């Protein structure tokens, strides 16, 4: 009895507020836009019973998805999201790995402090962290002032409202997600393995490539997915730091919904985004599973 209630409460909550809303998105993505409230058709009328339901089904179609393939805005937005997410993930790895490595090699009494310093930004507002870059990257911003001041450049650089600013924003905000799993993998690495490698004739660098990197592979993969997956659907960073040339699917969805009020197309965009995300999510789950089995 108690057990059933315990299961039922969170279960029903998630069904009602997670699964059903998602099914509604799916359904609206198959509907037609209409100048009405709500702005789509057909709407399901339960009073008409089974006939109403079949009538309802017959009116659903894949028109919106066909539309997505015809208008190259959407194609480009998906591709550019993938590209921006992938490149920022790579950059985050290049920036994050040395930090994680240095943390794992730091004296044990320092590690908790370093770890806290990495986690602290995660607790600070995402919006504020993105916002802080506007002042740095703008034409008359701190970066340009600094570079002009030391004489490296003579004309201010245009960084804000370009894709470069989006890369910086994603790397900056998601860096802790990259550092933490790599650090966790490297911290477990036994120092004597490197000593053994050197003892067997490796140089420091080849010991790093042949021992450290392979043993931190699981952490690298986990970190990459943890950056890539949220970056793909990102909205705040492209809309604050990106420019008109920055096409990201989260932003397109937002505008489709709020500016064009085309709910069926917005829903179709969401469904396709989710389909694209399933691949990395499944790969990520597999990686985690393997990791657990290897440790377990």
């Amino acid at each position, binding site marked *: 009895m*108690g057990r059933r209630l*315990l*299961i039922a409460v*969170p279960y029903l*909550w*998630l069904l009602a*507020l*997670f*699964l*059903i*809303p998602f099914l*509604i*998105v799916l359904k609206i993505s198959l509907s037609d836009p209409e100048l009405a409230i*709500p702005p789509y058709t057909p709407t399901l009328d339960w009073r008409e019973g089974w006939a109403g339901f079949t009538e309802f089904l017959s009116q659903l179609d894949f028109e919106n998805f066909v539309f997505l393939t015809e208008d190259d805005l959407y194609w480009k937005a998906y591709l550019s999201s993938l590209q921006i997410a992938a490149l920022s993930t790579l950059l985050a790895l290049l*920036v994050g790995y*040395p*930090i994680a*490595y*240095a943390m794992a*090699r*730091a*004296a044990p009494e320092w590690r908790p402090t*370093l770890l*806290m*310093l*990495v*986690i*602290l*930004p995660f*607790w*600070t*507002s*995402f*919006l*504020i962290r993105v*916002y*802080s870059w*506007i*002042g740095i990257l703008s034409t008359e911003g*701190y970066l340009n*002032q600094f570079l002009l001041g030391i004489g490296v450049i003579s004309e201010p650089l245009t960084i804000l409202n370009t894709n470069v600013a989006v890369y910086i924003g994603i790397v*900056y905000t998601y*860096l802790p997600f990259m550092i933490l799993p790599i650090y966790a993998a490297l911290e477990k690495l036994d*120092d004597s393995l490197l000593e053994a490698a050197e003892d067997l004739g490796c140089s420091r660098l080849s010991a790093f490539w042949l021992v450290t990197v392979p043993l931190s592979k699981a952490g690298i993969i986990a970190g990459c997915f943890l950056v890539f997956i*949220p970056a*793909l*659907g990102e*909205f*705040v960073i492209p*809309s*604050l730091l990106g420019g008109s040339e920055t096409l990201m699917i989260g932003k397109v*969805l937002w505008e489709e919904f709020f500016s064009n009020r085309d*709910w069926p197309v*917005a*829903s179709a965009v*969401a469904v396709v*985004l*989710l389909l694209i*995300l399933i691949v990395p999510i499944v790969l*990520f789950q597999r990686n985690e599973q393997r990791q657990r089995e290897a440790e377990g």
Partner: protein
Amino acid sequence: MRRFSWFNTTALTLGFAFLYLPMIILIVYSFNESRLVTVWAGFSTKWYGELLQNELFLDAAWVTLQVAVVSSTFATVLGTMAAYVLVRAGRFSGRTLFSGMIYAPLVMPEVITGLSLLLLFIGIGLDRGVLTIILAHTTFSMCYVSVVVSSRLVAFDRSLEEAALDLGCTPWEAFRLVTLPIIAPAVISGWLLAFTLSLDDLVIASFTAGPAATTLPIRIFSSVRLGVSPEINALSTIMIGIVTVGVITASLISKNAALRQRAEEQAAERAA
């Protein structure tokens, strides 16, 4: 450490400079006299004063705080229940779907979560406002809470619960008297996580908030779209300050507790 070389020192210095400089600049310039935020014109706290006069921000902050407290409390209760179900309830029909629904919101893009909830609220004719934001925030933060709590429950020695049953507790008493006090730190960090997620959320709140209720992130977002403003700098400084003090205090408390426990354990073994 032998390997603590110049390379590691450089990596840490540059890495933490990258992580912290933007926020430090923000804090410094919140005390700037000038409205031109990129030009330093002397120290002043006037933007904090202006901020406290700004009704729009104060109202939004009040809404945000209400939403965060209520939604994180609900999320903690539901998330703890969900964690208990995941770790302890064994097999039941629909278990795979259940764990899927717990983990999916963690990787779901916020735009999709927001859109789907908005469509639900419109579909059932629920007026958008504080209530709808609370429902939305509770739903996604309960998943985070359940991940935090279930990782603690997995490590929890099950024989403690069995001992409680053995000594005459009902299952509910065993949870209340034994399990809950022991997992309390995880439940508290789950609550704090849910609270910050709610304070922080822009996208889902934008979808689910109506004209009647505007949260602080929505207010900040519409303001910073027009560029940097000294009031937002001041507001950011306050928020960063609260979080920093909170996180450092929490970690000091838990570090001291761990140190004291270890010292007492060692003393007990020595005395034996």
